[in-house]
């Protein structure tokens, strides 16, 4: 009797309890050399779920030294345009092997903008490199847990460049065949 019961297929409740659904992966990139490896990793996960990948780069004007004068505005604008162009270039590279890829270029404070985009895009997973300026702010400290959980309601995967623990020497290859470590 017990054997027959145990042999039954899992109940609907049990099946759904352990079922995950990932339809959109949001990848935060800072456009450093390591961004490509992070996106490739994220695309690998997305591929498994058939999910779309959105690359997000947040241009942070506060992160650029402020100097008075019109020239600065030109420089800021140039910097913004350059960042947007580089993000487009990265998206094009990724689309060569993962077509379900688009981009989101935002201006502001990185952690806030990433959280906002995750909500607006209904992301199921946020992937961010460990060295990204916003990564620590997405972890949430004990006293900020409630505030952040209201804003970000999906898991955050922190990619640190190593594929397997205990095998830190093995680094994923970038598309140009080079190897780069995010940990300085």
């Amino acid at each position: 009797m017990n054997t027959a019961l145990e042999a039954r297929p899992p109940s609907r409740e049990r099946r759904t309890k352990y079922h995950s659904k990932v339809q959109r992966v949001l990848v935060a990139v800072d456009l450093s050399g390591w961004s490509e490896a992070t996106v490739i990793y994220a695309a690998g996960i997305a591929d498994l779920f058939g999910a779309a990948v959105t690359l997000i780069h947040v241009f942070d004007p506060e992160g650029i030294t402020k100097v008075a004068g019109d020239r600065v505005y030109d420089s800021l604008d140039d910097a913004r345009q350059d960042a947007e162009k580089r993000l487009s270039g990265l998206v094009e590279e990724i689309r060569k092997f993962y077509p379900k890829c688009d981009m989101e270029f935002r201006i502001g404070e990185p952690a806030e903008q990433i959280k906002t985009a995750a909500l607006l895009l209904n992301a199921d997973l946020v992937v961010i490199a460990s060295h990204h300026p916003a990564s620590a702010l997405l972890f949430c400290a004990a006293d900020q847990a409630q505030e952040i959980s209201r804003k970000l309601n999906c898991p955050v995967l922190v990619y640190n460049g190593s594929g397997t623990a205990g095998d830190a020497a093995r680094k994923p290859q970038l598309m140009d065949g080079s190897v780069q470590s995010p940990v300085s």
Partner: protein
Amino acid sequence: MNNLLETTLVAERSIGHNPLVKRIVVATDLSEHSRKATEYAVALARRFGASLTLVHVFEQEQITFTTPQVGEAYENARHHAELTFLGVFEEVRQNHPDCEMEFRVGDPVKQIALMASTFKADLVVIGSHHLRFLARMFEADEARRILHTIGCPVLVYHEGTICNADIKTGKP
């Protein structure tokens, strides 16, 4: 022709040969939130076809056992945690047989990092409720140090995560 070949090579290197996830280590503090994080990890393990290792670290308090009663209470608490953990493990194993458990005593960060290294984990899943761990992670330098020690990606499962739309709708 060359372009086509290069594109194919890039795709193979990027997706087909992605190391991705063969073993997931999930850290649980036996709280309700950790249970949800564990369920999420099980779902990922199923999707990846990965092995799962459940880790619970019983924190060793820096106390002096002044009386036998204090020592006994500590032992009872440890035994209770071990039994609770066993219950969680059995439930998970019914749904994902490729699963094992590790009950550890000591500092959670060090033990989780050690387990990730020992089992050559490809992914560590941890609930955002794991306060001791995350309080240290929140310090940028410490986070980098921990991540470097762990040596594999870490997925932080947030309290408000809607891990399964199907649960909400009740549809299979």
